[in-house]
């Protein structure tokens, strides 16, 4: 039997996918702006954040309406819950893209220094995680979502290494205190990107497999479904 609110759920998915593509591109541009010292591109990222925020508000409203009018259950209910949370994660990813872009101008005199750090490698890995997390949502693919979870350690390690290296640089070469501080903060921002990608992946696993795995609530892939 056809269900007319299927259309509303499709719209919700479509909006999330569009928002996902937009924030993916925002990260792309922000990373490129840092590594290529492109101030114009950084400004573009900052301007386009308004669009991300618009998606955030529309998605909240769409979810509220569907919750109130259709009393979703089972898969539909999980899509709504996951949709609300993924929206939140995407909006935060968008904010981080802006945070990255905001430091481009301050780093202009220190391009050579930036090139010696792991920022580019970290950013590429984090961007890939976000991309895969969004793909796992688009394709309802919990296996891909699990791969994202596994990549998080790599970025955490690079963040720790970068932190230690920057502390060392500040101690040994005070003339690099300013860029080292920027790099430290950028590294933390990038690490947060990966965390948001991880959260999205957990939401996808909840959506498809009906399992809550965050905070190691159910770490086994074959554990039973949620029971409350």
């Amino acid at each position, binding site marked *: 039997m056809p*269900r007319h*609110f299927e259309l509303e759920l499709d719209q919700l998915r479509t909006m999330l996918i569009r928002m996902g593509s937009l924030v993916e591109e925002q990260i792309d541009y922000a990373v490129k702006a840092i590594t290529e010292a492109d101030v114009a591109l950084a400004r573009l990222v900052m301007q386009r954040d308004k669009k991300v925020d618009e998606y955030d508000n529309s998605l909240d409203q769409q979810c*509220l*309406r569907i919750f109130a009018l259709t009393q979703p259950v089972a898969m539909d209910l999980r899509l709504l819950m996951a949709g609300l949370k993924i929206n939140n994660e995407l909006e935060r990813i968008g904010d981080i893209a802006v945070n990255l872009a905001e430091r481009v101008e301050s780093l202009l005199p220190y391009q050579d220094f930036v090139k010696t750090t792991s920022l580019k490698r970290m950013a590429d890995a984090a961007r890939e995680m976000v991309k895969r997390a969004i793909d796992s949502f688009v394709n309802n693919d919990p296996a891909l979502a699990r791969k994202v979870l596994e990549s998080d350690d790599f970025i955490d390690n690079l963040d720790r290494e970068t932190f230690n290296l920057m502390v060392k640089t500040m101690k040994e070469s005070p003339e690099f205190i300013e860029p080292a501080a920027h790099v430290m903060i950028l590294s933390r921002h990038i690490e947060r990107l990966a965390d948001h990608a991880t959260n999205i992946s957990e939401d996808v696993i909840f959506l498809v497999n009906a399992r809550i795995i965050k905070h190691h609530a159910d770490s086994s892939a074959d554990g039973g479904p949620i029971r409350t």
Partner: protein
Amino acid sequence: MNQNGYKITTRNLSLSYGPKLALKDISVGIRTNYVTALIGPSGCGKSTFLRALNRMNDLIDGVQTSGEVLVDDIDVYRNDVDVVALRKKVGMIFQRSNPFPKSIYDNIAYGPRINGIHEKNKLDQIVERSLKQAALWDEVKDDLKKSGLALSGGQQQRLCIARALAVDPEVILMDEPASALDPLATAKIEELIFELKEKYTIVIVTHNMQQAARVSDYTAFFYIGKLIEFDETKNIFTSPKEKQTEDYVTGRFG
């Protein structure tokens, strides 16, 4: 439809059953080709209001009505209004399905026949079209001679909808059309309502608030004969303006 997109407009509609005032001063506009739900606790006047729209209350002794009910800008309570023609234009579906003890075919053909249509070809077309519109055709097309009473409850209700559609109404009033049905039959009726609004203006009384949320575009909340709030359904169920509405839709009273 009048110029503002309203199929039905009531102005200061009040109604009493003898000394008891059942509707107090109701002014509201029902939009063309939308579904409007009437909700409220038992005795709030929602069914009385529904029945006032095609003068079904005339059949009850001691009913007094004041104010206006305009259908396409014509007051249906005017003395020169043909009540039979009004009820053809503003059809009604009741809580308990009530097919005639006749065949499926004759149930549908009844209305057109008393309106003077007797050619078999024409009646065949009307029966097929009405049953298709009511999403019943596929289930009964091979056995149109079967008694309407032999159908399941959900099918009987769709037969009654088909019977109402056969006389080309413009408005369909539904008084708790799914309250006697199981969840699957209810879901079918709800999907049907969604499809029918393309061609018809629908007003539905329901005790089931979730049903009102699912099927309607506009919702009117009645309480003790008064219209407390009327708004788009999405507003009534996400951010009602009146506290009484909020209390009712959240289940705090009623």
